[in-house]
C-alpha cells in the first residue's frame, strides 16, 4: 500500500477543502523521496490528519488515545463550518488516494452534521471507492465490499502497527489478554498463520463430528474410550488456555512490580527512615506494654507499700525503745514493785533502813520515777521486737518499691526518648507523599504474593497437562487395540481416523511453523532493535524474543527477561523494531509495501534514538509519514533526514482564523530556516 494524497473537507480543524500529497517514490535514494513530514505545534491538527486516515480507511471515528472520551464529544465536523451554517447541514469528507499491487484506489468517506439547539448531530452518509487497474480500467467498488477490499490491503487488527501514535505505540508491549489475542490474530493474518489456524480448527470440528458418529456405531468399550479421549482433549485445551493466561498475568505482574520498584526508587532517600520509623514504632509499642506491666505490678504492691507511709514513725518508736534498752532502762535492773515495797517498809533488801528525808530514800524515789511498770516494760519490749521485725520488712519493701519506681522511671524515659525520635523521623519523612511509599511497599508485597501463586499454579497446570498427554497416548493406544480386536474397517471409522490424523498433522505443522516464524521475527527484531538502540541500550539489551502468544520479551546480556525494566522510550523503540521485523518477514525479506504513519513518535526518545530512527526508517518502510511537533523535529533532525536524501514532502500546519488550521506545503530545502535549533544541553 502506498499513500498518494489526502483530501480533507470540513474535517476537524481543517475548514473547507484542503489537501496534501505524500512523498511516494521509494524506488531510489535521491528520487522523489518516501518521507513526508507534517509539522505543527500542539493543537494544530496533526492527530486530526492521523484520525482522518484511520477514519477514511476503516470508518473508525475513535482512536486508542481517545480513551474514555464519550462519543458525543468526539466531533469530526469542523466547528467553524457548523457555526456559519446554524440549522443547516454541513458536509465533511476525507478522501484518500492510494495504490496497492498495481491498482489505484480513491476512497472517500462522507459525513453530514448539523448544529441544532446547541447540539451537534453527525452521521455517516456515504462511502465510495474507485478502483483503477494498471490497464486503465476503472470500476466503482460496491459499498458493501469496500471494507473487505481495505481489509485485504491492511488488516484492521494490525493497523496500529502501521498507523500509530508514537506516544502509545509502546502500549503494544503492555496489552491485556484480550487485546493481545486480537493483536496476535492480526499478526497471524499478516504472516499467513491464520489460514493454518482456521484449517486446524475446522479439522478439529470435523474430527469431533465424525468421531461422535463413529461412536454411535462402535462397541460400548470403544465408545467409552472415544468419549474419554474427547474429554481429555477438552481438558487439555482448558489447561493450555489457563496456562497462557497465567503467563500473561505473570508478565503483567512483573511489569507492575518493576513499575512499583521504579516508583519506590523515588523514595530511596527516605527508605532508611521508613525502616527506622518501623523500628521506633515497634519499640514504642513494646515500651508501652512494659510500662503497663510495671504499673500493674506497682498497683499489686500498693497494700504493702502503704505501710511505708508510717515508716518514720515506726523507726522513731523503735529507736526510742532501743535507746532505753541500750541504756539498760528497759528492762530495769530492779522491778518497780520491789522498789515500792522497799519504800513502804523503809528497809532495803540488804537490811539498811531507808528513813524519810535521807539521801538513800531520795535515791530510791528517783529510781522509782525512772522505772516503768512491769507490764509496760513487757509491752515495750514486745513492741521493740515487733518493730525490729517490721523495720526489716520495711527495708525490703522500700527497696522493692524503689526498684519498681526506678524501673518505671527508666521505661518512662525510654518512652519519652522514643516518642521524640519517632516525632523526628516522622517530621523527616513528611506527610502524604511519604505515606505513598509505605502504600507502595504494601502493593509490592501483594504483587509478589500473586506472582508466586501464579508460578505455583503454572507448575501444577504443566504437571496436569503432562499427565493428560500421557493419558491421551494411553487412550489412543487402547482405542487402536480395541478397534483391531473388533476388526473395524467401516468407512465411518476410516473417515474419523483420517480427520484425526490430518488434524494432528496440522497441529504439528502449526507448532513447527509458528515457532520458526517467531524465531525469524525475533531475530529480525533483535537486529533492528540493536540498530535503533543507543549505545547504552545496545550493551544492556541483547535479544528480542517473540513469545508463543506473540507478546514480546527482551533479554539482557545475561539472557534474563528484562522487559519489565526497560524505559518507555526503549519500549517504543522495541515496538518499532518488532513492526519492522513483522513487515520484513511478511514481505519475505523485501521492503514491505506499507506506509508507516507515525503521530509524534519522538516524544519519549533520546537524541540518539531519534537519530537512529531517522537514519533507519526511510530505508525500512516503503513510505514514512511523520507527524511531528516543534519540540521533536528541530534543525538537528531535519539535517539528518535531509542527509538521507529520502525526504520528499514537507508541510506546516498553521493556525488560521477561528481556531482552524491551514495546510501549507514548504520546500524541504527551506525547512532548516523554519525549524528551531536543538536544545543546548
Amino acid at each position, binding site marked *: 500500500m502506498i499513500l498518494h494524497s489526502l483530501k480533507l473537507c470540513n474535517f476537524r480543524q481543517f475548514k473547507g477543502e484542503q489537501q496534501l500529497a505524500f512523498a511516494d517514490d521509494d524506488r531510489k535514494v535521491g528520487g522523489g523521496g518516501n518521507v513526508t513530514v507534517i509539522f505543527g505545534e500542539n493543537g494544530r491538527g496533526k492527530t486530526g490528519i492521523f484520525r482522518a486516515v484511520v477514519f477514511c480507511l476503516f470508518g473508525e471515528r475513535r482512536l486508542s488515545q481517545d480513551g474514555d472520551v464519550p462519543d458525543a464529544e468526539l466531533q469530526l465536523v469542523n466547528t467553524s463550518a457548523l457555526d456559519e451554517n446554524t440549522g443547516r447541514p454541513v458536509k465533511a469528507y476525507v478522501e484518500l488516494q492510494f495504490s496497492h499491487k498495481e491498482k489505484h484506489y480513491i476512497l472517500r468517506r462522507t459525513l453530514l452534521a448539523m448544529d441544532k439547539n446547541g447540539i451537534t448531530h453527525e452521521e455517516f452518509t456515504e462511502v465510495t471507492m474507485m478502483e483503477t487497474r494498471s490497464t486503465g480500467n476503472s470500476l466503482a467498488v460496491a459499498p458493501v465490499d469496500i471494507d473487505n477490499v481495505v481489509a485485504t490491503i491492511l488488516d484492521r487488527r494490525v493497523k496500529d502497527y502501521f498507523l500509530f501514535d508514537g506516544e502509545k505505540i509502546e502500549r503494544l508491549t503492555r496489552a491485556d489478554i484480550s487485546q493481545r489475542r486480537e493483536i496476535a490474530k492480526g499478526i497471524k*493474518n499478516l504472516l*499467513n498463520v491464520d489460514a493454518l489456524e482456521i484449517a486446524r480448527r475446522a479439522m478439529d470440528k470435523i474430527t469431533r463430528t465424525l468421531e461422535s458418529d463413529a461412536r454411535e456405531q462402535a462397541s460400548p468399550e470403544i465408545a467409552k474410550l472415544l468419549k474419554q479421549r474427547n474429554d481429555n482433549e477438552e481438558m487439555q485445551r482448558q489447561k493450555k488456555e489457563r496456562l497462557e493466561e497465567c503467563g500473561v498475568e505473570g508478565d503483567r505482574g512483573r511489569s507492575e512490580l518493576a513499575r512499583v520498584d521504579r516508583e519506590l526508587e523515588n523514595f530511596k532517600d527516605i527508605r532508611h527512615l521508613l525502616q527506622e520509623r518501623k523500628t521506633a514504632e515497634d519499640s514504642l509499642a513494646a515500651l508501652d506494654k512494659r510500662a503497663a506491666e510495671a504499673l500493674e505490678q506497682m498497683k499489686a504492691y500498693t497494700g504493702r507499700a502503704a505501710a511505708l507511709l508510717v515508716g518514720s514513725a515506726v523507726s522513731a518508736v523503735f529507736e526510742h525503745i532501743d535507746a532505753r534498752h541500750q541504756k539498760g532502762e528497759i528492762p530495769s535492773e530492779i522491778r518497780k514493785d520491789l522498789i515500792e515495797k522497799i519504800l513502804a517498809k523503809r528497809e532495803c533488801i540488804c537490811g539498811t533502813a531507808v528513813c524519810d528525808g535521807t539521801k538513800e530514800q531520795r535515791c530510791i524515789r528517783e529510781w522509782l520515777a525512772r522505772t516503768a511498770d512491769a507490764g509496760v516494760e513487757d509491752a515495750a519490749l514486745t513492741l521493740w521486737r515487733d518493730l525490729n521485725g517490721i523495720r526489716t520488712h520495711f527495708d525490703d519493701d522500700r527497696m522493692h518499691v524503689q526498684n519498681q519506681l526506678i524501673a518505671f522511671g527508666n521505661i518512662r524515659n525510654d518512652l519519652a526518648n522514643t516518642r521524640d525520635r519517632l516525632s523526628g523521623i516522622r517530621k523527616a519523612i513528611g506527610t502524604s507523599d511519604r505515606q505513598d511509599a509505605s502504600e507502595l511497599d504494601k502493593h509490592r508485597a501483594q504483587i509478589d504474593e500473586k506472582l508466586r501463586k501464579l508460578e505455583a499454579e503454572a507448575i501444577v497446570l504443566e504437571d496436569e497437562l503432562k499427565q493428560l498427554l500421557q493419558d491421551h497416548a494411553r487412550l489412543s493406544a487402547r482405542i487402536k487395540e480395541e478397534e483391531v480386536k473388533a476388526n473395524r474397517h467401516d468407512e465411518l471409522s476410516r473417515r474419523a481416523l*483420517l*480427520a484425526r490424523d490430518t488434524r494432528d498433522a496440522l497441529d504439528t505443522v502449526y507448532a513447527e511453523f509458528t515457532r520458526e516464524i517467531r524465531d525469524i521475527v525475533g531475530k529480525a527484531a533483535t537486529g533492528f532493535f540493536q540498530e535503533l538502540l543507543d549505545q547504552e541500550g545496545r550493551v544492556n539489551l541483547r535479544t528480542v524474543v517473540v513469545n508463543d502468544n506473540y507478546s514480546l520479551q527482551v533479554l539482557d546480556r545475561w539472557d534474563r527477561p528484562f522487559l519489565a525494566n526497560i524505559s518507555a522510550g526503549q519500549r517504543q523503540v522495541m515496538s518499532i523494531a518488532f513492526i519492522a521485523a513483522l513487515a520484513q518477514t511478511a514481505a519475505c525479506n523485501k521492503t514491505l509495501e506499507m506506509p508507516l504513519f507515525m503521530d509524534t513518535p519522538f516524544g519519549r526518545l533520546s537524541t540518539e534514538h531519534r537519530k537512529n530512527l531517522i537514519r533507519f526508517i526511510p530505508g525500512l518502510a516503503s513510505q514514512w509519514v511523520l507527524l511531528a511537533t516543534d519540540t521533536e523535529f528541530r534543525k538537528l533532525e531535519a539535517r539528518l533526514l535531509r542527509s538521507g536524501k529520502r525526504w520528499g514532502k514537507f508541510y506546516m500546519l498553521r493556525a488560521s482564523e477561528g481556531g482552524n488550521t491551514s495546510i501549507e506545503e514548504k520546500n524541504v530545502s527551506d525547512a532548516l530556516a523554519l525549524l528551531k535549533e536543538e536544545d543546548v544541553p
Partner: protein
Amino acid sequence: MSKNEPDLPELNALISEKLSAFPPGVMKLATKALQLSDQLPEQAVVEALMGHVREIARQQGGRQR
C-alpha cells in the same frame, strides 16, 4: 498483505514442505483444508471439507481392499 493474493509464497511453501512428511491421504486433506481456509470462513471450510474427507477415505478404503 492480502489473503487472496500470493503475498507470502515462501511462507506457504514452508507449510507445504512440512506437510509432505505425512501420508498422502493426510497431506492431500491438509492441503485442501489450507487452500479453503485461505478463502473461506471456518464454518464454510468445515462444510466443504466433509466431502473431501469422504472422498479420500473412500479412496483409501478401496486401496486397502
